[in-house]
């Protein structure tokens, strides 16, 4: 399940369905679970992922050539949710593939597959609100995004519509670049906490053990995604999982 407020930092990582292949996805997810990753985003690849940087854009492009789709994501979710009950799986997608599938049917099938939450970056809060009763009945949590330029009024609205946790976009821009975790960032987090009791998942620019250490005690979840996909791309899923394991060990016992 999602962490409780102020619980110790957990890692959320990522799978782009079909990247590098559907079979490899299963092994990679097993590797992440074994490494101690508590939440995994299952990303439906999309032809036009506008909130993503080049790492995920290219992974999507490859994934589409290797059978990635909404259906493939649901099928994989059914398998991995049953196999790794200790991991919380979150569906990540751009809106169009879900819209084409049929939103209501998609929500039902995702929930039946064991998916607990959804991150859809181009689905604004106004369009989500009418679906909240359906999503609540299915136990499918919409995890909405807050960005550094979101007004307090809108943070309030987004917090009200979010379930499970809130995704805090750490900085301006797209995924896959560095972020600074200074005073400005801490103030930003504090502002968001005024509007919600939900745990915060921080993403965009979480790439090193230093980043994770900086987030310890400030957020409940760190989304460690593009860097992991780069490891997976360059060195294969096994080495990527080993790297993830050592980085998690490092933050769990900083003295070691």
């Amino acid at each position, binding site marked *: 399940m999602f962490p409780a407020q102020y619980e110790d930092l957990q890692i959320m990582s990522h799978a782009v369905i079909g990247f590098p292949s559907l079979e490899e996805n299963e092994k990679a997810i097993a590797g992440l679970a074994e490494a101690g990753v508590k939440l995994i985003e299952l990303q439906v690849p999309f032809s036009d992922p506008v909130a993503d940087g080049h790492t995920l854009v290219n992974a999507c492009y490859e994934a589409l050539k290797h059978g990635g789709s909404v259906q493939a994501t649901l099928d994989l979710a059914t398998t991995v949710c049953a196999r790794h009950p200790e991991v919380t799986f979150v569906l990540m997608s751009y809106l169009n593939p879900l819209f084409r599938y049929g939103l209501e049917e998609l929500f039902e099938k995702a929930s039946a597959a064991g998916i607990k939450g959804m991150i859809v970056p181009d689905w604004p809060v106004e369009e989500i609100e009418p679906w909240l009763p359906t999503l609540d009945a299915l136990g499918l949590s919409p995890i909405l995004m807050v960005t550094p330029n979101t007004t307090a009024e*809108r943070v309030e609205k987004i917090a009200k519509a979010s379930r499970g946790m809130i995704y805090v976009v750490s900085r301006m821009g797209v995924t896959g670049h560095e972020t600074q975790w200074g005073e400005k960032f801490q103030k930003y987090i504090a502002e968001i906490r005024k509007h919600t009791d939900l745990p915060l998942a921080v993403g965009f620019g979480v790439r090193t053990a230093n980043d994770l250490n900086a987030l310890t005690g400030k957020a409940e979840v760190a989304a460690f995604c593009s860097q992991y996909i780069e490891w997976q791309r360059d060195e294969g899923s096994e080495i990527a999982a080993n790297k993830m394991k050592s980085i998690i060990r490092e933050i769990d016992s900083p003295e070691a």
Partner: protein
Amino acid sequence: MIRSENGYFGEFGGRFVPEILLPALTELEDLFFALRDDPAFWQEFATLCQEFSGRPTPLTPLRRLSKQLGGAQIWLKREDLNHSGAHKINNVLGQGLLVQRMGKQRVIAETGAGQHGLATAIMAARLGLEATIYMGAEDIERQYSNVFWMRQLGSDVVGVTTGAQTLKEALDEALRDWAASVETTHYVLGTACGPAPFPELVSYFQSIISDEIKEQSLRQMGRLPDEIVACVGGGSNAMGAFGAFLETPDVNLVGVEAGGVSLEDGKHSIRLSQNTGETGIAQGYKTLFLQNDDGQLGDTHSIAAGLDYVGVSPILAYLSQQGRVIPESATDDEVTEAFSLLMKTEGIIPALESAHGLAGGFKRARQMKPEQNVVINLSGRGDKDIFTVARAFPQREWTEFLQREAVRSTEALAKKRGH
């Protein structure tokens, strides 16, 4: 001019963007709503278009060609005579006025054929703004002369190498830039697409075209035209040509899409006709997209880089659904034929994009009576297409000239390096 209901035109439109872009779109919308009914603002815009771009552009009768085709009288709205060579400058000059009011110092734009990028580079140079233009690597190859001029004008042109490397990918990349730079940068979207308020805002500035057509028709024909024809890529020149006539049902409005080489997937860019486009939500808005069953946006083809787009203005999707706009298409071959016919009969060199309007318009005019009038919006001029057209009509001397020119250009570069 048509108005949205909260950004929607029927079921189409809306604002489906990452949260990070929302404040900028709201700011732009507030500013636009505050200005659009202010006659002084429109006057400021019209004066700028007159002083800088030579508006009003003429309405030219095609006497010889009309007689030859034996149908309706054909008139061209001469957007090709704008500064920069296309209608794109209208929207860009308008958005330039908004940029000045917002106080932003940098602009970005996507471009397909390069005409919108060129217009943006011109506006940025004139206002002293920094400009970055995103263009698909494939389109850069097709429209290199525009790239050359954009760079000479001081803009940074970034080639986009993801996916099919055309307009769709350029738009994605511009949105990514904007997500990082939105507080200091204005995104000069080039067509009547994208998240609200862009479809409405771009159509508003382009409607200067139909305002003029209305006035000129009354003066030159003594009445309104029976039909107005425009090519449709994203839809900005069509919305510009149609805008003032939407509530005049006697005037037929015809949008001509790129039929490419065939109706096979990936070989055309027809979204409005023949059930090719399906409702989808991407690139910030809801419209008819060419896409597969999984909701992945499809590949497109057209001889004209500016029509090679996977979505279409939500306003045109709505008007087409309502039956107000009649969708037509023209194939690459029909287009080169119409291109050649206009040149040889009337001495006007059209852009390949606009030649789709010609192909569709000529076809329809043939079926009409000599006392009827058809206005075709000639959205741009063809100079930029010299390389593409030269390939469509191959000539030995042109190829030999290019070889000599390549040698001269290489020598000039070596000399510069030597200094």
